[in-house]
């Protein structure tokens, strides 16, 4: 817990400067594919993938470590002690394998894809949308999961998902996942909310004290709400919105804007707003709730009945990598029970390795973050980047792409 608190304070500066919304979007935009592991969801995504990846084969066996490894990662995923001397899982890896690690943190999915395309990097912690683009472009190659012993302990709910496999071929090793939740001030918001309507249709009850995530991807939250409350719109996937569905979501958010006090992208900002009472209800992450509660803020959190959006990340190996043995060793290292527990606690997300839960410093960590709770994650629509080809598989309409989402988001904020 203290570790996470430190992250909050330390990354605050970086985050605010480095373009808060973008960075946070990037940090969290780590999901893809489709929803929640239901059969229909998988089918829809497969149709939506609509591409055949180049024929590449996975590594058949490991050689001698190549003494070097270049990583592209989200901030906080490959810590070498430079952020906090006590937070370091890179140095032990270097000592153990002899692979000298260079970490390049990227603020957005676009940056990650561009960095990987240079061919100078070996592994990447890709978000789902980035992962599919990397696979389609042949930038990353299939993974031989047999060479990653710790893969066996990864939760089944994360294996062979639409964002980390194509046509039954694994392209990556799951890293961790989390959900966007509804946080509220227990003193002010009574009775406890059970639905996202508290921040949409009924938001006026807390006029000027409602908060929302400051990123175009938040439009998906509105779409998810409409998907459940306005079936007539026919929304099947909150990331695949045609003109009419998109307009409905945007209108909902424009109406919500009247009740918004402030939007947040830097999570320290949300904590301070909830502490001071400037915000009393709004979307949040588990780590924010924990930190706010640790700060004695009277907040509670709920996964509303409509389900929620969230993220899920994957480690992938570059096709052109000259250091594949080091890359495989890194992937095995980062999801080894102890390290995966460290990363998960540092970042505030559910670990991918089921054995991590025994290694966390906070013994209730995995329960708090619902690590093994597949029914919880079944209700999560992992973040995805919208493209014109509808992700729900519809062929007769075009969907709004992320550029349109960004423009709309700016118009929503006015």
């Amino acid at each position, binding site marked *: 817990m203290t570790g996470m608190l430190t992250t909050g304070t330390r990354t605050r500066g970086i985050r605010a400067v480095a373009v808060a919304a973008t960075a946070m979007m990037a940090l969290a935009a780590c999901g893809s594919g489709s929803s929640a592991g239901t059969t229909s969801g998988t089918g829809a995504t497969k149709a939506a993938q609509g591409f055949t990846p180049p024929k590449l084969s996975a590594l058949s066996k490991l050689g001698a470590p190549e003494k070097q490894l270049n990583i592209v990662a989200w901030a906080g995923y490959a810590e070498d002690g430079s952020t906090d001397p006590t937070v370091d899982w890179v140095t032990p890896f270097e000592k153990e394998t002899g692979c000298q690690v260079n970490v390049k943190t990227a603020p957005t999915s*676009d940056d990650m894809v561009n960095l990987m395309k240079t061919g100078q990097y070996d592994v990447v912690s890709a978000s789902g949308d980035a992962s599919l683009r990397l696979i389609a472009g042949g930038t990353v190659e299939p993974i031989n999961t047999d060479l990653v012993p710790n893969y066996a302990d990864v939760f089944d709910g994360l294996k062979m998902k639409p964002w980390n496999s194509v046509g039954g071929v694994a392209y990556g090793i799951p890293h961790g996942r989390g959900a966007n939740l509804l946080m509220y001030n227990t003193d002010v918001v009574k009775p406890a909310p059970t639905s996202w309507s508290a921040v949409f249709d009924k938001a006026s009850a807390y006029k000027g004290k409602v908060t929302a995530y400051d*990123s175009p991807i938040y439009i998906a939250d509105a779409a998810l709400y409409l998907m459940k409350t306005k079936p007539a719109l026919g929304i099947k996937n909150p990331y695949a919105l045609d003109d009419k569905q998109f307009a409905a979501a945007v209108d909902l958010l424009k109406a919500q804007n009247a009740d*918004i006090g402030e939007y947040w992208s830097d999570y320290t900002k949300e904590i301070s707003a909830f502490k001071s009472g400037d915000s009393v209800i709004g979307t949040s992450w588990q780590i924010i709730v924990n930190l706010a509660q640790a700060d004695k803020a009277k907040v509670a959190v709920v996964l509303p009945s409509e389900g929620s959006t969230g993220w899920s990340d994957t480690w992938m190996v570059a096709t052109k990598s000259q250091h594949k043995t080091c890359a495989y060793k890194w992937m095995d290292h980062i999801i080894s029970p102890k390290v995966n527990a460290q990363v998960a606690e540092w970042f505030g997300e559910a670990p991918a390795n089921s054995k991590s839960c025994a290694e966390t410093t906070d013994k209730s960590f995995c329960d708090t973050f619902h690590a093994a709770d597949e029914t919880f994650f079944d209700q999560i629509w992992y973040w995805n980047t919208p493209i014109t080809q509808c992700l729900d598989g519809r062929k007769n309409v075009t969907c709004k792409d992320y550029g349109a989402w960004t423009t709309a988001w*700016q118009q929503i904020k006015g």
Partner: protein
Amino acid sequence: MDHGLAADQGLSMLVARGRGAVRRLSAFLHRHPRVRLALLLAAPLVVLLVVYLGSLGALLLTALWSTDVFTGLLVHTVTLDNLSTVVTDATYRTVILRTVGVAMAVTVICAVLALPMAFFMAKVASPRTRRFLVVAVLTPLWASYLVKAYAWREMLAGHGVIDWALAPIGLRGPGFGLPATVLVLTYLWLPFMVLPIFAGLERLPDSLLDASGDLGAKAWRTVRSVVIPLAFPAVVAGAIFTFSLSLGDYITVQIVGGKTQLLGNLIQGNSGAANNLPLAAALAAVPVLLMVVLLLGVRRTGALDNL
């Protein structure tokens, strides 16, 4: 021995020849002052033209391109779509006007606060106090921008210091929003207004103030007819700082602006999240154009000549 001697001679001849070359070069430069000037200015000119104006040109050029929605790559076909979007889109227009309004408000408030401060520092305070005051004005610049912005966030928050201080007289703080943004930007950029005015007033001879008094002018008349006209170029210099700094700021508004957004936030959103560099470039051209217009206007007043 002979060989050594020959080598020595050869070396000294070489040195002499080298010296001769240097001498000839310096003589050449002496006779051709224009060449001398060109060589002297080459490095700064390269920086100015290539790095500064070159990147500005690249910015304007990028604004004429577009982005392929599927690949996210730039399409190098000239189109005016982005520029027309910036001008015609209601959201962008509102945000541009709001940004200019904020920058103007910050500049005016800074000038109103800075003039008396700078006058006191330059003309009233003892040399000892003056040094102390200059340091006091400069001190906030030593602290990180973010630390100051977040400190203001804490002060402006509900039940923060400002609410607490205003409570006895039945008032509330401004909360997060546009007024808070103007307040914090004013605080952040005030030194950039105080220092030029202070420097300008320091150059103002005391004898002029005395003369004004001797001619029968009261204090306010002296300020109006002597101090302000002479300090005007300095105020303009300060205003250029505060206006341009406010025009480009997008972080303060994220921290204390509530749900407001300014031009910088739009540029950031388009360049980062949306990966639409051309539109971001078109938006970024707006403050550049505004500053050009402003500087041309300032030039017409003649204030730039007096700087």
